[in-house]
């Protein structure tokens, strides 16, 4: 139970994590990175829930960064030899460079063409019952040469295995192309929205959209979060609903050294 749980409760036994066999898409923007949302989920999983976490790091963030942050939040990462936290860092290095790390599948095959098969084969053996799989940085994959179609096929394949093992899937993607309001519309490039559209269409879960304030950076409020349920996952009863927080009345958040203050827009008494 960390900083987002009270505001974004899920219809699951833990309320801080999405229910099993569902996915959560987290999108963010350059001025308001959404890493804190991922830390919240990981912190819940490692802390109270005691679930296995598999982090597929497409962004190249590195384990030491997470070690420092999660320690500050209060749920330190298990040691690197522990099976309860797996860090997979797919590598875009040419195949001529050999790596010794077994959790670093190559993203380029022997012909220097992008391929996700090796990464997929690397993830699946680690899946155990009820784990949390995080595919972190799908936009980065898109930008280094994979097509949105390939990426969505990869996500579907992983999602299928995730559902079989009653696990949870979390995806992160950058969505700078989305308009912030009816007047603040960024210039659109062809194909930029394709990846997000495809992932949303996979459905069966929820979409958290983290975006910055249209008025620019501020010391008090660093951004907004809205939550949009997607199609219902199989096995979820009718009464259980994913949290719905519209863009018109979003949650606002502020990062602090040890935690994140989250409050509905317009309130903030005690924090502001």
């Amino acid at each position, binding site marked *: 139970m960390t900083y987002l749980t009270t505001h974004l409760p899920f219809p699951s036994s833990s309320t801080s994590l999405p229910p099993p066999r569902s996915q959560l898409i987290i999108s963010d923007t350059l001025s308001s*990175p959404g890493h804190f949302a991922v830390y919240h989920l990981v912190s819940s999983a490692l802390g109270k829930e005691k679930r296995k976490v598999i982090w597929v790091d497409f962004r190249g963030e590195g384990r030491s960064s997470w070690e420092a942050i999660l320690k500050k939040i209060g749920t330190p990462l298990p040691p690197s030899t522990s099976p309860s936290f797996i860090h997979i860092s797919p590598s875009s290095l040419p195949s001529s*460079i050999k790596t010794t790390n077994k959790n670093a599948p190559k993203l380029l095959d022997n012909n220097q063409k992008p391929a996700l098969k090796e990464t997929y084969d690397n993830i699946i053996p680690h899946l155990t019952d009820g784990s949390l799989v995080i595919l972190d940085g799908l936009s980065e994959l898109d930008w280094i040469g994979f097509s949105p179609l390939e990426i969505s096929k990869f996500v579907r394949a992983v999602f299928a295995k995730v559902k079989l093992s009653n696990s949870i899937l979390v995806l992160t993607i950058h969505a*700078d192309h989305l308009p912030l309001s009816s007047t603040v519309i960024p210039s659109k490039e062809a194909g*930029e929205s394709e990846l997000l559209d495809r992932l949303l269409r996979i459905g069966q879960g929820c979409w958290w959209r983290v975006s910055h304030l249209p008025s620019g950076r*501020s010391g008090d409020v660093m951004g907004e979060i809205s939550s949009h349920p997607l199609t219902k996952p199989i096995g979820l009863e009718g009464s259980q609903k994913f949290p719905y927080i519209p863009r018109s009345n979003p949650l606002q958040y502020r990062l*602090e050294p*040890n935690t994140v203050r989250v409050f509905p827009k317009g309130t903030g008494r005690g924090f502001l």
Partner: protein
Amino acid sequence: MPSFTRRVPSTTLPPPAGTHPSPSLSSLNLLPSGLPSLDDLLGGGIPLGSIFLVLAPDTQSSWSKLVERYWIAQGLISGQSSLVVGTDEELVKGCMWTEKSWRGGEESQSETEHEGDGGDEAEGKKIAWRYEKMGKFKTTVGGNGSNLSLTNTIPHDVLQSIHKTGQQSYIGLDDDLTTDATIGTSSSSNRLSMAISRIHDKLDKSDPKRAGRITIHELGGLEWGDEIREDQILRFIHSLKSIIRNKPISALITVPPQLIAGPTKESFVRKLSWMVDASVELKGFADDPTLPPLFPTTHGLLTLHSYPTSHTLLPSTLKHSTLLGVSQGSDGGGGAGENNLGFRLKRKKFVIETVHLGVEGGVGERSTGPPDVVAALSGTSTHHLPATTNTGEVEGVDKGHSGQNQNTQIGQEESGGGIGVDKPKGPEGDTKKKTKPRARVRFGGEEEMSVSVSTDNGKDQHRDHAHDSEHGHDHTHDHSHGDGQKKSSQRVQVRHDRPDLYEF
């Protein structure tokens, strides 16, 4: 010995030479970039294992090369290793160096623009809270020990020794590509892959305790091959990141302007900014001649696209940067937004500073047309910014050097005042005094001005041709210039605190 002693963990290693711990996390070591004001924006410096991107979209300036040289020079001074990819010694030979007679902190004292540091500073008033941490009239932050000065170039003996000891090394891009047949056939991806392989091999052999810097010069430029695609560049950055992430090495990348200039490139700039750890854009005024008069003491505007966010929940930039001004007050109040930033090349150093909007208020008139570039270049103008007290079309007074309208001295980049855009004026305090106008443009039907004034008020003469401007106010042309006395009916605003600007 007291019974309670603080146990210092014995596993803490001292930071490698030339680095310092981050103010947000003591276990994270940061590399200074050589520019203290830039370090402030980045939250103290570049974390080890990160990539820093410098974008300079002007086609006629080389701001990114200047920052590269600072980066390299700082590393060499600190004894760190330096690897330059994509160019040869010329970059390093032109690096700046420290002052010969470095007297410690005294240098930085003389350089800061501390005017009027009165005792009334500590009033406790919370006006303009976001400048709280900055002194009165101070627009930038001071040094953190790096004393690089632009008046000195790297000495010859230092150059020789760094090359001899291998502290400075290079990776060129023009070696033959036929040796490695496993790399793909197209030449540009060849060069990128080859560069990555060579960087990887080089760093594998490097000392794991010694901090190092990599400089990737003009990534995607001519040296790197023809027809480089965006995804190849982004892939290169992704690979480079994976190589340096777990090492005490950081990289600085610059990108040629043609890849990033223009509105269609906005999304590419965003992607680049996501891929790297920190990204700044230095947009000089060379491409747009209407801007310099509005920012008289600045050479360009700076945008911070992204800053380091790893290792801490609250990024160090947001917490500690004085220049950015996005501070969280202790009482949690007044998040009024961030400062506008610009940069300036001074005689001895390059500084990044806050850019102030004019005291008299910037937006006085609605702009009804696009900026008149031709007029700005030729020194005539059809737009005037009103003074605070008059309804006429009179200039505001701090047009300093921009008062050259009626002559054709276009040599300086700052000439051309009175622009048809709604932009704020530059700061009053720093008006540069230019020479008096040399030519007088006469308009038919207008009386000759008998008072010769310097700069600011020279605009009297061509007020007439403001008729065609679209302002819609009353234009009264009261040229009462008989004896040079400024009567109250005259529309020129006189600066009584600067009598030196006028000649009676």
